[in-house]
């Protein structure tokens, strides 16, 4: 279990701000030969004529947590939303380049964005449980959509329980599954949204600043569960909180003004960044 007070005992090679705490080293991605989970090639994303993501190529490893950090407006959320084709839901939005998930390209005239989204989970900054549905119905909301698993009620209950367990919420809500989701606290609602995303057993889950609106205790719970999830799911998390990225992720990508500046294992990025801009950002000189 991750303790927020764990501190790296190695001597840093450069001066780093004392508040950045990096976990014990993890093997970096793509060394063990499994295919990467998400591969973006020369990916650009536009709002009208303005490019929010410029020519980004990145290879995100499977079953690991990858963080995307950068100052406000650098395009990290936009990049994330390109991975499940949510970017195009905005009017006048456009994508250039390609994205492959587990070897299959997700952009293409004949690929349905709806199919893509069913296999990729997403959690947003503010908790968004469906207000008119019970907790059970919320978690199962993504299920009914997938006609492949035309689950019976019993099977649905199992899936709901499994998802809530994985989200660390089962114990707290197991006796009130049929009550409104709005009765939960903010932190619980966000974990409910995570459970909802997990219910379809996606291979990838995208988290867009998931703890930005949560209190510290709920934030910690969510971080713990993200750390656990990487055993079974690939997690990509966008965060403006560097310490969170350091605590939770295996690899970190730094974005600045739509460009990918550096992508390395978290330990490397925070202790020995290669690009001076990365160093400026993590030492707090801007952003």
């Amino acid at each position, binding site marked *: 279990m991750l303790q927020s007070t764990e501190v790296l005992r190695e001597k840093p090679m450069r001066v780093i701000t004392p508040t950045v705490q990096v976990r014990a080293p993890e093997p970096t991605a793509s060394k063990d030969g499994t295919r990467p989970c998400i591969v973006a090639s020369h990916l650009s994303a536009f709002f009208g004529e303005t490019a929010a993501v410029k020519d980004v190529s990145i290879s995100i490893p499977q079953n690991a947590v990858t963080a995307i950090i950068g100052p406000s407006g650098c395009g990290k959320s936009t990049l994330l939303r390109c991975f499940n084709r949510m970017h195009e839901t905005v009017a006048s939005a456009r994508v250039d380049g390609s994205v492959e*998930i*587990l*070897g*299959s390209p*997700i952009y293409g005239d*004949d*690929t*349905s964005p*709806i*199919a*893509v989204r069913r*296999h990729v989970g997403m959690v947003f900054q503010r908790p968004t449980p469906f207000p008119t549905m019970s907790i059970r119905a919320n978690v199962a909301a993504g299920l009914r959509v997938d006609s*492949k698993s035309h689950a019976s009620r019993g099977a649905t209950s199992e899936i709901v329980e499994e998802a809530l367990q994985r989200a660390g919420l089962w114990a707290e809500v197991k006796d009130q599954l049929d009550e409104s989701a709005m009765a939960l606290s903010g932190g619980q609602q966000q974990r409910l949204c995570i459970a909802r995303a997990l219910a379809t*057993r996606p*291979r990838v889950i995208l988290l867009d600043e998931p703890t930005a609106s949560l209190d510290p205790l709920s934030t910690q719970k969510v971080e713990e569960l993200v750390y656990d999830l990487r055993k*079974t799911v690939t997690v990509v998390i966008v965060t403006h909180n560097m310490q969170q990225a350091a605590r939770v992720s295996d690899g970190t990508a730094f974005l600045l003004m739509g460009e990918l500046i550096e992508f390395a294992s978290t330990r490397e990025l925070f202790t020995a960044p290669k690009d001076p801009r990365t160093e400026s950002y993590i030492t707090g000189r801007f952003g």
Partner: protein
Amino acid sequence: MTSLPVNWLEKEKDRRRLNVGASAFSDKVYEALTAACALVVPGLVIAIAVAVFAAAWPAFAKLGLSIVTTSDWDVAGGHFGAAPAIFGTLVSSTVALIIATPLAIGVAIFLSEFSPSWLRQPVGFLVDLLAAIPSVVYGLWGIFVLIPLLREHVMPFLRDTLHLGATPFFRGPAYGPSMLAAGVILAIMALPYISSVSREVLMAVPRSQREAALALGATRWEMIRDAVIPYARSGIIGGIMLGLGRALGETMAVTMVIGNRPEISASLLAPGYTMASLIANEFSEATNDLHLSALMAVGAILFIITLIVNAVARWLVWSVSRRRAQ
């Protein structure tokens, strides 16, 4: 934990044709259905215009402007002069606005500026509720309560005690059913419309405007007069026009209290007529085609007048909210 096949979109692609097809098709059906519903609105406006004008055309063709300019409504003789009705519509609405506007703006200012917070909801609600009362209930109350009140107390007071009878506006016998009665009822009916729009635009005036005036040493009234109202002016005018639009088209309450006499008179104490009452009274008994067409023509004129008034009113209110958004 189920693991998806390595090429996890492969199986999807088989169903992809169905999926893309199915959901894209459903999306298209949904969009078409909602667009069709939306198109009913302009369709209705066009349909009403076409139906009414087509039916009115024979009368316009045969009688021309005499419908508007002459006063002789003679069914048997084929003359249809609706001038008294048009006159009555305009006068009763004007009287209504004269009475309602100061009251409505006063209430709006009260609610947006001075009202203690515990009073705001109840008073606002009571004023808004006036808009929900059916016209025929106003008429009923008008016949049995307002008209006796006017006839026995208010009219003699105005005509004799205040000596307003010397003017052409308050001359003559006080029968009860009259232009004044119609004006009063219409005022009550128009009040909530003027008040509600005015209240909204007054509340939308930014704090900075008010604070600037107060900082310069203005009294509260001066702040309202010089800083708030000018800012909200076009919205308030829009509200007044909305009230006007309502008053112009009102049928039942007016028919029940105006006396239904097709004569032009300067006196508010005299009975009168309005376009809406004319149609309401004669339509079911219209015998020949020209009569019917003439009534439709009156309806067409009413349609045009209220259309213009409402369009201008909405445009004014819309322009205020657009300015606010900037």
